[in-house]
């Protein structure tokens, strides 16, 4: 069994370093975490913090600054600056003793239990945690691939992409056209594209009130739809047009060289095209043969891969059941995995897995909404147990309180991730 699943992508450098003895801290169990985002940073921090030095934790993450996707739409809308969504790994290293390696994992040798790094060298683990986020499915939007992202940004991984999209929106000619190509399910952050539309409208209403916003959407329905549509009507009446699948929203291609979008044969000439393609688990999951279809299946009790019990997969990359792909979910799953890993490696107490999620979205100034749910692990999947959603017609005081809550949550989750 194991043999078949062996999926090591050997580079020359990695192979060479195999000869070097693998350094193992004084018999301490070793946990390696791939990806320092919502899932990975949280898991690394909880394991380091709660094992009080009994477990050696290595975090592999190529970037030195992590820009949260959450609140990146608020940056586009002018409610946050870019610096306010930037985080570094300094505290994880200095306060929690986590060995932060700024490198890219290229493969996993599941039999030898080692991770190969792009910079050469490899790291061995007793337990591996992978939380690499998403990658885009090639060819999902004909005419677009990652090489077109500087012309038609996705801004679905935050940082330079988000800054590019924002500057393009601000440079639109008066009366110009912004088109979003929305993704099919399942994808990262179900309300994300629609919160983005709200923020784009907020900017354009101020600076470019005759501009048009078009969404080409392959989905018949979307998250918090009634709430968004009510808000769009109220704040941005007439500015936003959504083309659903019944009008060809699922039959879309783009031409980056001419800035055109073809929606079911009708060609739209646009000034900004924001392409959010269909998604799959971050590439490393596939490289490690941990995927079935586009995602990595996991057991909700522990977040262990269903294909390798020494590996836990977290966050957007997983197929776990009912939880949406969100930063909140990834953070919640990380705590369950951290507990299970500590239990397995040091015998610490293990409690039944509990999960929850809340996604806030901002429609306009002080007009916040939310949706959330709680979940429990069953043998089959992570199953929803209870939930709530904002109501249409709520008064301004409640909407403002909801927005303020989201600011509190942002502080909470980012300090929970990065210390």
């Amino acid at each position, binding site marked *: 069994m194991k043999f078949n699943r062996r999926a090591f992508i050997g580079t020359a450098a990695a192979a060479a370093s195999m000869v070097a003895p693998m350094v193992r801290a004084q018999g301490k169990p070793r946990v390696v975490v791939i990806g320092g985002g919502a899932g990975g940073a949280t898991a690394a921090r909880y394991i380091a913090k709660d094992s009080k030095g009994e477990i050696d934790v290595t975090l592999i993450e190529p970037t030195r600054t992590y820009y949260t996707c959450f609140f990146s739409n608020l940056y586009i809308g002018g409610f946050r600056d870019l610096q306010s969504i930037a985080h570094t790994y300094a505290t994880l290293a200095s306060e929690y003793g986590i060995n932060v390696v700024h490198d890219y994992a290229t493969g996993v040798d599941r039999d030898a239990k080692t991770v190969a790094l792009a910079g050469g060298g490899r790291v061995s683990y007793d337990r591996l945690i992978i939380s690499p986020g998403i990658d885009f499915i090639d060819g999902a939007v004909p005419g677009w691939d990652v090489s077109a992202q500087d012309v038609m940004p996705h801004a679905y991984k935050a940082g330079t992409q988000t800054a590019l999209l924002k500057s393009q929106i601000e440079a639109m000619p008066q009366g110009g056209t912004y088109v979003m190509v929305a993704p099919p399910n399942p994808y990262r952050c179900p309300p994300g594209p629609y919160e983005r539309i709200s923020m784009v409208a907020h900017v354009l209403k101020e600076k470019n009130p005759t501009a048009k916003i078009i969404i080409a959407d392959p989905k018949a329905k979307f998250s918090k739809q009634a709430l968004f549509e009510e808000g769009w009507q109220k704040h941005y009446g007439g500015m936003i047009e959504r083309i659903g699948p019944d009008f060809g929203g699922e039959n879309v291609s783009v031409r980056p060289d001419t800035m055109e979008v073809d929606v079911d044969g009708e060609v739209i000439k646009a000034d900004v095209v924001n392409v959010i393609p269909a998604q799959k688990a971050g590439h490393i999951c596939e490289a490690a043969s941990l995927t079935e279809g586009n995602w990595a299946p996991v057991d909700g009790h522990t977040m262990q891969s269903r294909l390798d019990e020494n590996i836990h997969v977290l966050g957007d990359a997983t197929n776990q059941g009912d939880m949406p792909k969100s930063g909140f979910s990834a953070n919640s799953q990380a705590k369950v995995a951290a507990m299970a890993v500590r239990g397995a490696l040091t015998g610490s107490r293990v409690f039944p897995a509990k999960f929850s999620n809340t996604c806030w979205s901002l429609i306009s100034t002080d007009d916040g909404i939310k949706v959330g749910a709680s979940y429990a692990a069953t043998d089959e999947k992570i199953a929803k147990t209870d939930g709530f959603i904002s109501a249409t017609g709520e008064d301004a005081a*409640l909407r403002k309180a909801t927005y303020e809550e989201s600011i509190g949550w942002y502080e909470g989750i980012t300090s929970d991730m990065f210390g």
Partner: protein
Amino acid sequence: MKWTLVAFTLALAPPGAALAQDTADAIGDADRGAKVFRKCTGCHQVGSDASNRAGPHLNGIFGRRAGSIEGFDYSKAMDRAHDDGMVWDIEHLDAYIENPRALVSGTRMSFRGLKDPQDRHDVLAYLRQFTANPQDIPESAPTAVAREVELPPEILAIVGDAEYGEYLASECLTCHQSDGADAGIPSITRWHPEDFVVAMHAYKRKLRPHPVMQMMAGRLSDEEIAALAAYFENLE
């Protein structure tokens, strides 16, 4: 006085209303309540010339949204209850005057609370007279005495398992900050465990209005709430 209220009750109670079945009763004895209200008059006025003192005036309190008197400087916690949409119906009034902090943790009403249910019901019967046109606000109809909010002593006596609390708390710390900062979401560290426990049970029973917290508390057992209280009490 009592008689009027009873008559009133009978007139308003929908036949077979579930709550009325539980505790079919008039609110209480308003005459006696006028005396109990002396415990409140240091801070509150009610009646035709009533104005705000240390506490807001209590005219029209039944059916009034919490924290809604213009010009009165409410605590941040009461403002939050207002924003959440909490309304002073009999159940919430009863809970608040029984133990103000169980319902609104950071409330500025520094009052120990009326532990005797009869005292509460009588004072509410008295206050009920100062809310006009009760027929217009059926949701605040004084058809029944609210259920007890005070927790049975055995729940308060549970000794929390702080280690379990630590795991359970990890779920809370996505929103509540461990260093006690309270921007947008209140701080829950270093509370007296009893305050913590009553607050969580008030969400669990959906007396406190917030949907996130009702959901979070709703699935916690009494032991789990105690475990969380024990953990957060000592969180540095």
